[in-house]
């Protein structure tokens, strides 16, 4: 589903205007993005958790005996808290 359809649904359910629904959705997404940017985890009851996971630096050895260093990386994990 695309964002537009989602906004329409929100507007229908809440009774708010389409523009206001869009603003509210954007606001929620921005708050989540900002908090994740500050390395803070987010837990939403009845929806799910957003967690930051770090893969540590590692060295891999190829068959031709070449060592490659893979740098550390931080990625985002979503753990759903709802029965789908």
């Amino acid at each position, binding site marked *: *589903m*695309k*964002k537009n*359809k*989602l906004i329409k*649904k*929100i507007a229908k*359910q*809440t009774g*708010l205007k389409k523009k*206001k629904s869009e*603003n*509210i*959705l954007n*606001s*929620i*997404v921005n*708050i*989540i*993005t900002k*908090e*994740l*940017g500050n390395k*803070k*985890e*987010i*837990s*939403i*009851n*009845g*929806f*799910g958790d*957003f967690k*930051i996971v770090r893969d540590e630096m590692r*060295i891999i050895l190829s068959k031709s005996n*070449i*060592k*490659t*260093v*893979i*740098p*550390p*990386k*931080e*990625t*985002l*994990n*979503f753990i*759903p808290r*709802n029965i*789908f």
Partner: protein
Amino acid sequence: MNKSNIVSAISIRFILNKDEAKKTVDNVFKIMTESMKDNKSLNIPKFGKFKLISSETGKDKFVRFLPSKKLSKKINYDFSDLEKKELSYSEPESVKVKDEFSYTISKEFLKQKKESEGSGENLSQVKDEIAAGEENTKKLISDELVKLHHEIIEFSQGNQEGSNNLWG
């Protein structure tokens, strides 16, 4: 951070009271969940994509979230400038096999040598002596000692001639 923080922020930004804000936020997440179930995917630009994946049996279903490039970059900001790197391996010095036997002569030894022989020998002469002295090392007893031994025997046994001994 949890849902109540989001509700507070929304109530402030959109000038709603807390109940209204809570209802709205709850609705938003509820509709997101429903749309995931119905459409099997929900795409929010600049945030990410929620995908509903069913297992092989088709009974178990779970949601996977794929963050957008923008969000991934933001989260990996600390390490974003690092890349894969191949290491070039070179043998350390200690592991390399030495081609020739090398040694250093201590200063004390040189001093002693100089004092005992009183000659102006220098380092290279001494080195040459030691290097070329293989024949000397085969002898267990020096010539001087052997000579001394002869003298002692001659003296102790008088002038006996034809004495057979190992050294005679």
